[in-house]
């Protein structure tokens, strides 16, 4: 793969975990026919954006095209930060938070392409815990919501159990089903 494809991917896909998943499949299936499997792997990881999109929908006052466009601002961190105690979403905050992250993500990819040749093992710097530690920091304030502690505990447990089970993305989708405990009461 040349240096351009990862950069273009960050520009037009802008969904980190899906990009990694698709590239991982491509790396394994270097032979023909890998594209479909890679697209499916990435899309499965992205399926969580469907309920996340439903969550922000009532807070959107725009017409169709505007709503679809605002949907493109969905990113895990922005979405979690934009969620309010009452269950509504600050959609302008969501837009702003994503607009800040977008150049950082693309810029980071541009730096990473030559950087990968210089830094032989980025994990030696502990870079692989940056995202989970960041998500943990976002999780803590969410736990104040009623019932959220149990949901997080069960969601985390099922994600751990299902990590070895294909396809990629299954642990995340299965864990999010625990939010359905909100149906009770």
């Amino acid at each position, binding site marked *: *793969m*040349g240096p351009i494809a990862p950069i273009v*991917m960050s520009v*037009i*896909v802008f*969904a980190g975990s899906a990009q990694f998943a*698709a590239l991982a499949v*491509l790396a394994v299936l270097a032979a023909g026919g*890998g*594209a479909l499997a*890679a*697209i499916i792997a990435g*899309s499965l990881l*992205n399926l969580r*954006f*469907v*309920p996340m*999109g*439903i*969550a922000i*929908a*009532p807070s959107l006052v*725009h017409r*169709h095209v505007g*709503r*679809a466009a605002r949907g493109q601002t969905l990113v*895990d961190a922005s*979405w979690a930060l934009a969620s309010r105690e009452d*269950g509504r979403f600050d959609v302008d905050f969501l837009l702003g938070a994503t607009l800040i992250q977008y150049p950082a993500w693309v810029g980071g990819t541009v730096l990473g392409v030559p950087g990968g040749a210089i830094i032989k093992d980025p*994990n*030696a*710097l*502990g*870079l*692989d*815990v940056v995202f*989970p*530690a*960041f998500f*943990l*920091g*976002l*999780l803590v304030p969410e736990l104040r*919501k009623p019932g*959220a*502690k149990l949901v997080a505990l069960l*969601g985390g447990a*099922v*994600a*751990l159990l299902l*990590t*070895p*089970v294909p396809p990629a993305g299954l*642990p*995340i989708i299965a*864990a999010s*089903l625990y*939010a359905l405990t*909100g*149906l009770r009461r």
Partner: protein
Amino acid sequence: MSATVWITVGGLAVTTALIKAVGPLIFGGRELHPVLQRVILLLPAALLAALVVTETVSGHARTVTIDARVAGMAAACIALIARAQLLVVVLAAAITTAVVRAVG
């Protein structure tokens, strides 16, 4: 190989845009049913917990791998209990992971 990469990039761009648009398009501008609202309220906790776990333990080819990342995440927990800023939490995790890897 090159064509495969570009088909993947293009295809994933299209599916990602559609997946992100579907919720706002179908449910936009309407109030959600109160029951669905309660589910939505719990969704961040479930999603974030799953992301934390999978990104801490997943190794190559979907194996569960316990390594220095766990020490880093323990450091993140301590930083969070001490009410540290998010940047400090992330740095504590990365530095701890790097040190444990270098020593171990």
